[in-house]
């Protein structure tokens, strides 16, 4: 059929018309979702095959592969066309998002082929984030399954409004009308509850080709569009151009002193010279002077276009700021509530610092509260303290600086963000902003006249944090005590924060799970910061097993105020010392989450001082630390004059 579409197209038009048709094509992006055996890959293979996007050499290799590893006997196994990576071909499953392309007379299609396996929820959400439409596949023999609900929920969560419910394998239920109708009714009642309303249900057989391009003769009871007809005619991109103007600045374009433009992509709305704009978060206003492009200045530009704006006034705008319609501005906040989908093996931990990237601004962020988790299978709200891979939660986030945003439901581009792990640089989460929290506006910093350096001066010392990290029994507290005695002898004002002691007081509500360990360190880091502000030398003696938290503590202090001291002792050495008898208990399983036994210790990469306790006595270790402090200017000049 598709072959006919294309060849008719070529035969009927002259070449100029033909090229014009090609140029005027629109673009539709969709994703297919379904469970492992629902026939997704077969459907996509069929779409490619029937729209004649399969070339002779691909067909030859497909026929050979079908005989060798196909699942359809001597027939062509369309699934092999789309299962790309060799590992997948062997396992017979799709393990990642793959993008496919085909084209008809009016539209070009980009298909995100996303896996149905439970552990790959993140891939489905990835595909859904750029899709205009979703095809949800159901096996006619099985009906609406847990996976169907999960996929539909993610589709709705990511704001994909148009859904084609493709009830597949109709050939295996004798093309029975009642089977189709029951599944459709079943699905619609569920879909309604999650806000999916624009649904077109179609009975198909991807394998036999029924109702894909051509109406299937065996489903004459079905009067609706075929899958292709629906894809060809569905109205999408529900007028982004009609929404308020939003233009996140990507790059300040300044080739010479006479030109200063702001380059970016219009995320929504439209703009023309003379329009009044505001820059956020600053709130500065101006009007658009020119819309500059390589192809000349434009009279108008609309959502989706990448342009460079020149303004009438010299106002301060940099990358990450948002230029918006002056009379319809986005909100500005440093705290908001959002739906967060976790995408990394390492769990999300509240209080741990992450980087948050919106359209094109990167800021530091912490999850201040996980309000609840959402079970994507049952949609039940569960309590929780952290999110694991593929888990979804509703969270409050707090940012290092304010950003301009709109709610995701109102404007996807302005309400979406990713979270990045600052150490590994991996993308660990994706979020959709629900609304801003107002509290930030009401908590103002108290103006302070007596500052840190004034307090330090009166003590004649350089405030700093000496952060001792290492396994339990490595000798942190012993060495810290000796160092404190030496510092005291040199008339320094000091304080020791010791892990065990603090856990009896400030942190007695915390246990030893990863979440609690992170919170434990966050409180200590903040406490140390206050004490450094007071002008003290703070000796912190905590196992502090995670790099991320030690880095957070370092980042809280000013440059040079944080000295990381790694008390290096092997687990065997510590276990043999075992001053508190803890290793014995841990090895018997009487203590859970014990660092080095069943909870990890991440060796420092940034340690300023490393003490090799296997070869150094505590006194020598203290010498080594005092020498470092002297050489790096932490011990005040005054002492040397005396």
């Amino acid at each position, binding site marked *: 059929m598709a072959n006919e579409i294309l060849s008719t197209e070529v035969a009927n038009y002259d070449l100029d018309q033909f090229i014009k048709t090609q140029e005027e094509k629109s673009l539709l992006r969709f994703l297919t979702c379904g469970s492992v055996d629902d026939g997704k890959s077969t459907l996509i293979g069929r779409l490619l095959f029937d729209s004649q996007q399969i070339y002779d050499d691909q067909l030859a290799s497909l026929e050979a592969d079908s005989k060798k590893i196909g699942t359809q006997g001597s027939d062509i196994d369309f699934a092999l066309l789309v299962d790309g990576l060799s590992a997948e071909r062997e396992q017979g499953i799709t*393990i*990642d998002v793959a993008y496919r392309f085909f084209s008809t007379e009016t539209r070009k299609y980009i298909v995100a082929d996303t896996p149905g396996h439970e552990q790959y929820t993140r891939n489905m959400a990835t595909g859904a984030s750029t899709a205009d439409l979703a095809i949800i596949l159901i096996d006619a023999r099985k009906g609406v399954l847990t996976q169907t609900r999960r996929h539909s929920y993610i589709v709705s969560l990511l704001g994909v409004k148009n859904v084609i419910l493709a009830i597949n394998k109709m050939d295996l239920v004798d093309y029975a009308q009642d089977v189709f109708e029951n599944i459709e009714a079943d699905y619609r009642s569920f879909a309604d509850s999650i806000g999916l309303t624009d649904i077109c249900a179609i009975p198909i057989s991807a394998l036999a080709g029924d109702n894909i391009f051509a109406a299937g003769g065996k489903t004459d009871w079905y009067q609706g569009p075929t899958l292709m007809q629906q894809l060809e005619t569905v109205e999408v991109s529900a007028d982004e151009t009609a929404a308020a103007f939003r233009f996140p600045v990507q*790059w300040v374009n300044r080739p010479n002193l006479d030109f200063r433009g702001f380059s970016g992509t219009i995320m929504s709305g439209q703009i023309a010279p003379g329009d009044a704009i505001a820059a956020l978060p600053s709130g500065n206003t101006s009007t658009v002077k020119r819309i*500059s492009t390589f192809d000349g200045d434009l009279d108008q530009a609309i959502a989706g276009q990448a342009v460079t704006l020149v303004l009438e006034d010299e106002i301060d705008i940099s990358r990450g700021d948002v230029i918006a319609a002056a009379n319809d501005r986005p909100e500005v906040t440093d705290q908001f509530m959002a739906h967060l989908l976790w995408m990394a093996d390492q769990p999300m931990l509240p209080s741990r610092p992450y980087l948050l990237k919106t359209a094109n601004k990167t800021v530091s962020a912490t999850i201040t509260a996980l309000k609840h988790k959402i079970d994507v299978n049952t949609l039940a709200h569960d309590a929780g303290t952290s999110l694991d891979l593929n888990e979804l939660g509703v969270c409050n986030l707090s940012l290092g600086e304010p950003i301009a945003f709109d709610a995701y439901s109102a404007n996807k581009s302005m309400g979406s963000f990713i979270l990045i792990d600052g150490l590994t640089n991996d*993308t660990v989460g994706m979020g959709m902003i629900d609304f801003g929290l107002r509290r930030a506006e009401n908590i103002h910093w108290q103006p302070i006249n007596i500052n840190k350096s004034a307090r330090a001066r009166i003590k004649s010392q350089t405030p700093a944090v000496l952060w001792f990290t290492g396994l339990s029994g490595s000798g942190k507290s012993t060495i810290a005590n000796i160092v404190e005695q030496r510092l005291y002898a040199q008339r320094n004002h000091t304080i020791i924060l010791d892990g065990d002691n603090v856990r009896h007081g400030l942190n007695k509500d915390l246990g030893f799970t990863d979440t609690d360990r992170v919170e434990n360190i966050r409180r200590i880091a903040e406490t140390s910061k206050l004490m450094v502000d007071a002008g003290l030398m703070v000796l912190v003696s905590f196992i502090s097993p995670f790099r991320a938290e030690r880095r957070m503590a370092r980042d809280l202090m000013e440059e040079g105020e944080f000295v990381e001291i790694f008390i290096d002792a092997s687990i065997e050495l510590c276990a043999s010392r075992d001053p508190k008898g803890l290793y014995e208990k841990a090895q018997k399983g009487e203590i859970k989450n014990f660092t080095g036994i069943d909870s990890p210790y991440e060796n420092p990469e940034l340690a300023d001082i490393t003490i090799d306790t296997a070869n150094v006595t505590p006194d020598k270790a203290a010498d080594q630390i005092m020498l470092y402090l002297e050489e790096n200017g932490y011990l005040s000049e005054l002492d040397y004059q005396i």
Partner: protein
Amino acid sequence: MSLTNLAKLEAESIHIFREVVAECENPVLLYSIGKDSAVLLRLAMKAFHPSKLPFPVLHVDTTWKFKEMIEFRDKMVAELNLNLIVHTNKEGVEQDIGPFSHGSAVHTDVMKTQALKQALDKYKFDAAFGGARRDEEKSRSKERMFSFRSESHRWDPKNQRPEMWSIYNGRINKGESIRVFPLSNWTEADIWQYIYQEDIPIVPLYFAADRPVVERDGILIMVDDDRMPLESGEKPELKRVRFRTLGCYPLTGAIESEADSLPDIIQETILTKTSERQGRVIDQDSTASMEKKKLEGYF
């Protein structure tokens, strides 16, 4: 009101160019002189206009490119005032590595894959734009726009960063790099239509002309210089041919064609029955050969 397919693709590519330049310290554009590179270069010019290209252009020269490609490259560099870096694997040249003497696999590995890694290491580029498209080949269809490479330039297909919306994560640690593919969502037909619409200059080899070729294993190889050893009974024949992709001349098959204008090529492309990469000898060494090359650091 909404944008056409080509307008959307153009905007997406420009967005990606700007994002990389804003976030990376030392990007480079890999210029292979072919039609995809031509489009890539035009999009880059558009992204930063009226500023000049804020990065250099790198050509990895295997010394076996078509003569017309090199002429075309130098013409473009002069016209567009580009900062061109040409890199050749000197050790490979010293050992006389070539496709005829060592076979396509060794030649491609030494003169292309190794050479590219050498150049990226030498100039410490942290981001490299390439013209690869997802419609070209199965393993590419799964690759991200921002594709992370380890310190040894390896691609780990099972451990790719998820890529959502148009938010790209270009963060890397020292020594690591990213390959960036602004043309990921373009198809071959889109490329040709864009070249036509924008009147982008391309190497004349893409247009049909009478050229001396010999047929080997069903592939038409153009005799571009006298380094090509002719087997007994082989005699170059003048045939009306053009090329759908361009690379090293001994590894690039011609197709017989009468298409000597862009509209003819567009028509032929839509109707074509042979996929683009079949003309490339290097992909046929084994089933998953592109995937394997990518793992090793080939683009």
